[in-house]
Every structure is written in C-alpha cells, then in structure tokens.
C-alpha cells in the first residue's frame, strides 16, 4: 500500500477523544482542601480521617522527604518538570458517608458508570466493586461468599481503622517513603485505595475489582493499596480506570504494595485509561516469598505521561514473578513503562513480556531491570519486548538493564521494533477487509497475549477502548 494512503487511513485514529470519552459531571464536594501542599494540608487530611498518631507521623515524615528529594533526572524530564505541585488539590471528599448499598450511591456517580458502559447485571455479578470516585471510596460491596471466607476487602481508610495491627505491620514496608519522590508524595497525602487480606489457604475465585476515576480539575489522586495474601492463598485483583478529560493537568500518583506469603499467588491487573492530561506516576512493588507467585498484568492506554515499573522482589526459593504489559501511546502521550525483577533467592524464575504501540507522534518507552543478587543460584529469567510503530512521527525506546552477581543463571532479553507489514495489510485488504479494520485486526493480534489473560468483561472493555483509539471517524 502506498505510504500516503496508509497514513491517511491512520490520520483520524485516536481523534475526537473528548466527544467519545471525555465527559464530566458537576462537582459536588463536601470538603475540598486548599490547592498546594503544606504541613497544614497533611495535618488536615489526617485529622479529617481521625487517624492514629503513627499515621500522622508517617505522613509528616514523608512530606519532609518529598520536599527534600529532587525530581527524577531520567525519563521524560521535560514533562515531569511541567508539574505544578502548588496548583493541585491534595484531598477531596465526595459525599459524607461511605455507601454500603448500591441504592445509596449518588445518582450522578451512577450516571458516570452508565457512561462507562458497565451493564447493571454485570455490576451486581462482579464480586466486590470499590468505585473510587474522587479521593475516597464511595461504594463498596463484597459478595457474601468472599466475606464468609474471611477475606478482608476494604478501602484503605477503613482498613486502617478496622485492622490497624495488620496495616501498621505492612504499610510502607515494601515501598518506603524514601523510595522516590512520588512515593513520598503519596505517603504524605494518600487517600483511598484498597486494603485486602486473604487468610491462609483461602482461594478467592472471583476477581476483586475497583474502578478509579478523577473528576475534578487539578485534582490529585493518591490511592494507597495494600494486598496481603497469606500462606497458600490466592487472589486476583483488578484495577481499571477511565477519566473525563480536563483542560489543565491532573496528577495521579498511587502506591501499591503486595505481599505474597509462602505458596501464595497474587495477580494484579490494571487497565489504565486516564484522560490525556493526567500525569500517572505510580510505584508498584511486590514481595514474593517461598514458592509464591506474583503477576502484574498492566495495560496503559491513557494519560499524558505514565511512569510505572511494576516490580517483583523474589525473596524466597522457587518464587515466580511475571509482568505482562501493553502500552498504547497516541498523540501527545508518553508511556514510560516497564518491569523490575529482582532475584534475591535461589531457584527463582521470572518472565517479562512487554508490547507497545505508538501512533500519531506518541512515544512508548520500555524501561526495565533484571537483577540477580549474590547468593541467588539457578535463576531463570526472560524479558521480551516488542514495539509497533504505526507512523513515522512516533517513537519507541527500549532501556533494559540486566545485572548478575551470580553465575549459575540463565538470563535472556530480546526486543524488536517494527511497523505493520505491508504484506499483512495487503493480504487482509485483498480479502475485502477495509484498511482500518485490517489495521485494527493486526493491532489486536499484536496485543492478544495480553487480552487473553484478562477476564472476559475486561477483555471486552479493552477491545472497546482500543477500538475507540483506532477507529477515528469511522461509523
């Protein structure tokens, strides 16, 4: 196919985002903290939530670290330095009380979910839906059998109130405030997120889900999620988000800590589709103990700049870590994502599979670390990155780091960058398929290893999102 024709077919893809996906409801907040960050704001947040003294101390210490730490000097520094920390709300609380019943969920919030296209029947079917609307969880339900199994599934604030002993034991232990500037920021002003504890030997068969949203201009979202899977248990947690678009920049900076005890299994699935003005700077890290498995399934579609490198620290023998990710970068987007695998024990294994698609001048970056610590023998690990460039304006970068301090290991990394083959397009169009459809089929095929790992309703939603991105003016 001639180049011009192809680029014409691609031209409209990913346009009209605002009309198709950007929507917002009028704000109705009971409390809105001042813009900007200060000790007073942090004290206010902690006070509003009636937190114990240790949490206030933790926040204040983190705030201090945040002020002292310089901005990262790597990654997309131009975009990072564009964040105006003074112009952000650090806490908003919608409605007074937490809803326990679907009927109590405010109407405008329900409307928003309707727009997202989540069918009523499906909502009821889903095990536990924590809908993060603004900075706090407004709707929270847990299916009876899950509750009966002894599983704790709360928003983080309730978790802190009801299970302070567990929270204190693990909170900030996997990702200390010192870790990076944005982890420090989150530690200072966190609000909402999920707290999950799965008791020994319990298998949660239905994925637990949470929807995240941002709905106020210049509003930061600083969720804090902590998941503990006790010995021999298993859990699948799903976090998905779509956000209305706004004119000025929004900051989203979450911290997610996972602990998989001996023989436990955690799968954490994310589909991130923030509107294209959001900074999504997230720290995600898991500890896998003996024979435990941790899997990060990570889809990045939205945001202006995402910097996210889910990590698994393999601390016990025979632990296994996995990251499976896709990134889709359209106009004015930079997806700087990757994975970190740190092998600190013998006989551990890990697999990283990363797929990225760049179009309309978008930029996708894979940045990763694969490290074998001294004393970790018989380690096997592979990293595989594939990048698809859909036009000559777009960009793909690969920055993997591999480091070994032991020799009885087998580490491999492979990456490729290519475009959609003319032969592939020609074959499909000769079968009577339109160019755009053909392009979409190829892209869908490219990300299939990712989609097939998602639960059905998410796979459908993802396909719909990709379709919106790829479809452009058609229909």
């Amino acid at each position, binding site marked *: 196919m001639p180049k011009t024709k192809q680029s014409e077919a691609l031209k409209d893809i990913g346009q009209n985002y605002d009309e198709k996906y950007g929507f917002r409801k009028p704000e109705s907040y009971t409390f809105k903290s001042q813009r900007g960050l200060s000790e007073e704001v942090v004290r206010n947040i902690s006070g509003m939530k009636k937190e114990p003294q240790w949490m206030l101390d933790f926040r204040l210490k983190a705030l201090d670290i945040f002020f002292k730490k310089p901005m990262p000097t790597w990654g997309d520094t131009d975009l990072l330095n564009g964040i105006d920390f003074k112009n952000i709300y650090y806490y908003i609380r919608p409605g007074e009380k937490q809803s326990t019943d679907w009927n109590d969920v405010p109407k405008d919030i329900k409307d928003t979910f309707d727009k997202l296209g989540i069918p009523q029947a499906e909502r009821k079917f889903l095990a536990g839906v924590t809908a993060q609307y603004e900075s706090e969880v407004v709707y929270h339900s847990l299916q009876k059998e899950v509750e009966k199994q002894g599983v704790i599934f709360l928003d983080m604030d309730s978790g802190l109130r009801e299970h302070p002993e567990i929270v204190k034991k693990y909170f900030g232990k996997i990702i200390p405030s010192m870790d990076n500037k944005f982890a420090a920021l989150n530690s200072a002003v966190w609000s909402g997120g999920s707290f999950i504890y799965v008791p020994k030997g319990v298998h949660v068969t239905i994925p637990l889900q949470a929807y995240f949203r941002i709905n106020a201009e210049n509003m930061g979202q600083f969720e804090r999620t902590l998941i503990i899977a006790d010995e021999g248990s298993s859990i699948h947690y799903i976090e998905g988000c779509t956000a209305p678009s706004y004119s000025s920049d929004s900051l989203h900076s979450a911290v997610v800590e996972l602990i998989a005890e001996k023989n436990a299994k955690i799968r954490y699935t994310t589909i991130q589709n923030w509107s294209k003005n959001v900074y999504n700077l997230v720290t995600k890290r898991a500890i896998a103990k003996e024979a435990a498995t941790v899997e990060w399934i990570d889809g990045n579609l939205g945001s202006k700049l995402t910097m996210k490198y889910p990590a698994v620290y393999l601390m016990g023998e025979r632990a296994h870590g996995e990251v499976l990710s896709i990134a889709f970068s359209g106009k004015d987007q930079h997806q700087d994502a990757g994975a970190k695998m740190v092998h600190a024990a013998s006989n551990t294994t890990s697999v990283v599979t990363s797929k990225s698609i760049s179009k309309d001048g978008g930029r996708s970056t894979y940045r990763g670390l694969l490290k074998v610590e001294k004393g970790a023998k018989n380690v096997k690990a592979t990293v595989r990155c594939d990048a698809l460039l859909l036009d*000559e304006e777009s960009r793909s970068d690969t920055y*993997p780091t591999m*480091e070994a301090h032991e*020799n009885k290991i*087998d*580490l491999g990394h*492979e*990456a490729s*960058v290519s475009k959609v083959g003319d032969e592939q397009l020609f074959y499909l169009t000769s079968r009577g398929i339109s160019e755009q459809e053909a392009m979409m089929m190829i892209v869908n095929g490219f990300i299939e290893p990712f989609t097939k790992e998602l639960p059905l309703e998410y796979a459908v939603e993802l396909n719909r999102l990709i379709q919106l991105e790829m479809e452009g003016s058609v229909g």
Partner: protein
Amino acid sequence: MKYLSNSSENSATPVLRIPKDTQVSETLFYQDATHQALTIVLEPNSSANIIDETVAGEKSVRSIHVQKGAKLHYTHIQRCGEDVTFVEEQMAEVDQDAIFQTVHIGLGARQMTSNIHTKLMQPGAQAKILGVFFGHNHQVFEAHTIQDHEAPNTQSDLLFKSALKDESQSHYEGVIRIPRQAQKSDAFQTNRNLLLSEKAKAKSIPKLEIIADDVRCKHAAAMGTLNAEELFYLQSRGLDGAQAERMVVEGFFEEVLSQIPSDEVRQRLVKNVHERLLEGKLG
C-alpha cells in the same frame, strides 16, 4: 609502513590513508605505542585489512572514515599489562555503499573502557561491530557502543561477547539510534556474557531509540554460565570435564575470532584464550 604519513602540518596525529581505487591485499599491521591517536581514511572504492595491536600504553584514539564504496576490515587488539587502565576511543563514519567491519579484542589491562561510536552517514552504508573480552583476576571491561543511523537504507550489526573468570567484571551499555530520516534501516545489537565463576559480575544495558517506523530493529542480551547439556554432550564423547569446559568457551569466542582476517593473528589469539583457560579452574 606504507600508506602511513605523519599527517598534516597542524596535527601530530598520524594518518593511515588508502588511496582511491587501491585494493591492499596484504594485511596491514599497526603497532605503535608512541602515538595514542591514529586517523584511518579509506578513500572511495579502496579496500584494506588493518590489524591494530596495543601491548603498552593507556589510550588509543581512532578516527576512521570509510568513504564511498570502500571496504575496511579493522581489528583492534588490546593486550596490555594488567597494571594499567586502558581507554579505547573509536569514532567511525561510513559513507555511501561502504562496508566497515570492526573487531575489538580485550585481554589485558586492569580496567579497560571502550567507547565505540559508529555512524552510518549515507544510504547503503554497512557496519559490523564485534567485540570479545576475556576477563580473569580482577579485570573490569567496560564497553559503550553507539550505532547511529544517519541515513536511510543503512545496516548495522553488533555482537559483543564477554567471558568472565575469577572476580572479573563486564559492563556493557549500547544504543541504536534511528531518527526519522533513516527509514528502511536494519539494526541489530547483541550482548552475551558467559559467567565462568561465582564471583564474576556482568551488567548489560542494550538500548534502542527508534523514530523511523519502516525499520527492522532487534536487540538481545543474555547472561549465564556454561550450558550443562553442551558439557554433557562433549563428555559423552570422551572429553573430561575441564576439556569440555575449555572447548565450550573456545567455541563461544570462535564466532568473533573467526572474523579476523589474519590466520597468524587468529591462531595467536586462540592460543591466548587457551592459556588463560588453563589457569586455575572454571566453574
């Protein structure tokens, strides 16, 4: 040495210049510890094999220009004493339809740093960039490579290998850069590390920065120890454990050493590798 001149009036750098349309059939050996810098120019449609060996000194600075249609096979061998810190700087420019092969062998020095920058300046330029490092004792080999595709229809293929005994270390960091104008380029980059001792360390950062979409670009990196199946196979053929290990390591280097255009030099290097393998014990 023929073709070598002590350069222009305002520069002390000697120049090795192969005139236009000249095919030099014998291998040219360059060994000069007094000058750290050397400029190599292959004028259009000329060809040459150059072997450049450093056994003393601290630095070699090489500026290479392979002009239109020329062909250069260049080999740099570093066998300095293990009390020095050695820095190798190489900048090569490859013009239209020119072919450049560069092989880097690192055996000596306490610490060696190689900065190998290859620029494919015009369409049809091709470069093959190869390197082997064999570390023992406390040697550290650091290599930084850049493959810059400045023009469309250019090709580059890089392979750097290191085998590490004792407490030696390898640190590889390389980047392929394909800007918008360099469509229809092919670029490859591979780094392999063979860790022969528990105390050896390796770090590898192979990077890609790609903007042109109509390209074929791949990279790979691997780290590991001797393959147990290969060793088992050789032992089943009657070799003892140590012999089998040596044979696998020699095979690991063969891929690069076989590209050196002089039998005499190649055999000498194979012997060097063999001798180093006989010291102490592997594994």
